[in-house]
């Protein structure tokens, strides 16, 4: 079990003929993801380097392959349209990897997506979603993985399936940051803790699914033993998540908030990471988590150990 995607998920790539889309389609195939095709308007009827069929429209791709998820590498000016096309075609999981989509485009997309309650948008400006598969042979980047589903740009091999985890435990990971997610995954894997599913919700101010929706899904997933929440400065989603956790969550949650040292008013790489009022600082979010009984890692180097302790595991490092 996991959330959102698993080994049976059939995945499309929108923007499959672009260099980034092509590169990551290959990476997902190598991880064992069931990539079933791609979409590039005007190139329908051809095939990509891996032999995957290319379609002109998402609707044709869904009809032709039975796909239920997509990853979007379409350039920013066309990405909002690509998201809506995916929703209209009935895809359940839409991962928008593209960075740099205009905010007003996402305001529109978010309003229109209300008409498609069955579609979950992940991102934009995110690494994607992964449900790790089991390692059958090899090590490190050369590992051969089976039964997993990687949709996005994350390095697959750092993840650990629950069945491969020496502690027998696995956590869900939700994060606004890509490389910081890898850090959390790596630290838990080193401690013998697996991951059920890791979701990068993205660094933009207007995005698809958020902390509360995903925490709720992880709460309902029997395989997930705990949840890591990685937030940052900007917005107040983490604070709302903290109070939701206090009210509803039964599983242990460990949190980290990036940007304690960020100066106010300055954009820190992510378009969403700009401190505005008093509620959206790192300190305000950390205080809210602590007040709601969530264990907060003081240092990004303690993400794994904080989760391990919250799970009641002995930490020996």
């Amino acid at each position, binding site marked *: 079990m996991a959330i959102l995607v698993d080994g049976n998920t059939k995945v499309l790539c929108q923007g499959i003929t672009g260099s980034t889309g092509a*590169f*990551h389609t290959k*990476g997902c195939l190598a991880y064992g993801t069931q990539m079933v095709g791609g979409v590039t308007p005007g190139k329908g009827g051809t095939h990509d380097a891996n032999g995957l069929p290319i379609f002109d429209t998402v609707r044709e791709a869904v009809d032709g392959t039975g796909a239920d998820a997509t990853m979007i590498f379409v350039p*920013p*000016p066309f990405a909002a349209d690509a998201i809506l096309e995916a929703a209209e075609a009935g895809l359940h999981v839409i991962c928008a990897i593209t960075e740099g*989509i*205009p*905010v*007003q*485009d*996402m*305001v*529109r997309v978010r*309003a*229109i997506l209300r008409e498609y309650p069955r579609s979950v948008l992940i991102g934009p400006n995110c690494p994607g979603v992964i449900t790790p598969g089991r390692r059958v042979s090899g090590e490190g*980047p050369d590992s051969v993985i089976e039964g997993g589903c990687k949709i996005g*740009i*994350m*390095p697959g091999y750092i993840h650990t399936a629950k069945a491969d985890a020496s502690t027998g435990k696995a956590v869900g990971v939700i*994060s*606004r*940051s*890509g*490389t*910081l*997610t*890898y*850090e959390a995954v*790596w630290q838990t894997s080193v401690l013998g803790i697996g991951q059920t599913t890791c979701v990068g919700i993205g*660094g933009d*101010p*207007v*995005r698809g699914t958020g902390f509360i929706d995903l925490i709720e899904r992880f709460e309902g997933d029997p395989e997930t033993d705990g949840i890591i929440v*990685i937030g*940052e*400065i*900007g*917005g*107040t*989603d983490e604070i709302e998540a903290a109070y939701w956790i206090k009210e509803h969550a039964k599983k242990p949650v460990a949190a980290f908030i*990036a*940007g*304690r*040292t*960020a*100066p106010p008013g*300055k*954009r*820190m*790489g*992510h*378009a*969403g990471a700009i401190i505005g*009022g008093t509620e959206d600082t*790192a300190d305000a979010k950390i205080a809210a988590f602590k007040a709601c009984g969530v264990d907060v890692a*003081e*240092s*990004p*180097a*303690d993400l794994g150990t904080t989760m391990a302790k919250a799970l009641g595991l002995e930490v020996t490092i």
Partner: protein
Amino acid sequence: MKIHEYQARQLLSDAGIPVPPGQMVETVEDAVAETKKIFASGESLVVIKAQVHAGGRGKAGFVKLVRSVEEAREAADFMLGNRMVSVQTGAEGIEVKRLLIAAGVDIEKEYYLAVTLDRNNGVNTLIASAEGGVEIETVAHDNPDAIHKVPIHPLSGLEAFEARALAKRLGFHGRQIQQAATIMQRLASLYSSLDASIVEINPLIVTPPTDAAPDGRVIAIDAKFGFDDNALYRHPELKAMHDPAEENPAEIRAEEFGLSYVALDGTIGCLVNGAGLAMSTMDIVKLHGGEPANFLDVGGSATKESVTEAFRIILGDGRVNGVLVNIFGGIMRCDTIASAIVAAAKEVGFDVPLVVRLEGTEVDAARQILEDAKADIPSMQTARNLAEAAAAVCDAVA
């Protein structure tokens, strides 16, 4: 991206939002000529304002009300070419190259009006207050009930009746209501058509009643815009308004190389991949007693050229006395970045301690590359994990 006040006034005026007559000038002579023109039109008061992006102009003496041509000449002479130092500029200040010369307006009452994104709901929102002329943050803190918020429908925009209702709530009356409501609707559509991140009119004022306008006139006195950098590709007219002299030169250079860089006040330079990890690296430096000198995200596809430039920018900050490199190689291979670090360090020359922490794809090969280069870069040490790296660089500069 930000623009100057005189440009913001032009945008408002083009959208049909009334502003007092005014003109941007770059010389004292032009300032005098514009002042004469305004006096000749029957006005008795002229305001002279330095055009810089930083706030705090009034307190710094760079906004002057004048009643004569001589006073105008004196004020323009003082401001042009001078450096304005305010709470927002830092000690070195900003050189003033342009002035706005505008007609002074008698004010009956001041309001605040803005449109920005409500991140929690993902919709644009009109924000207004009858307590104008002061910082909205102060109002939010002292009297939050005085701030009115109206969500703007993402697909259909702000309706006229919503604007009239808000105008009524703010205390506009009689013919002011229609004037204020029209300004609100025009501001909301200007905001979305220009892909603004914020547009703020402070103050929006009502003039005293006259025979021609018995309820007074509603006018925008000062305006600020911020724009979504990601949407500038579809606004060449805004790109043309960009004033690079107002930005940190190191941040502009970084952008050219695909680096995301923000200068800070500390002494430990940071080079990291990924925005979240870059922020966290600053945080962990601080936790170990150091002060980060910058935020720097090399992005997902760092090359030898971009890493070299990143080192140049970091070391170009004279306060930097140690550098921490923290890379989690995902798609980016650690051996590629290790080679780039070595080549860049050799080219730039490192006389301050350099601590490198790499993890992820091809890390073993990367560690070997760094090991082999240690003789050439004596100030370099490597760390196995993030905590060790932060401790090492903080120790090295202590």
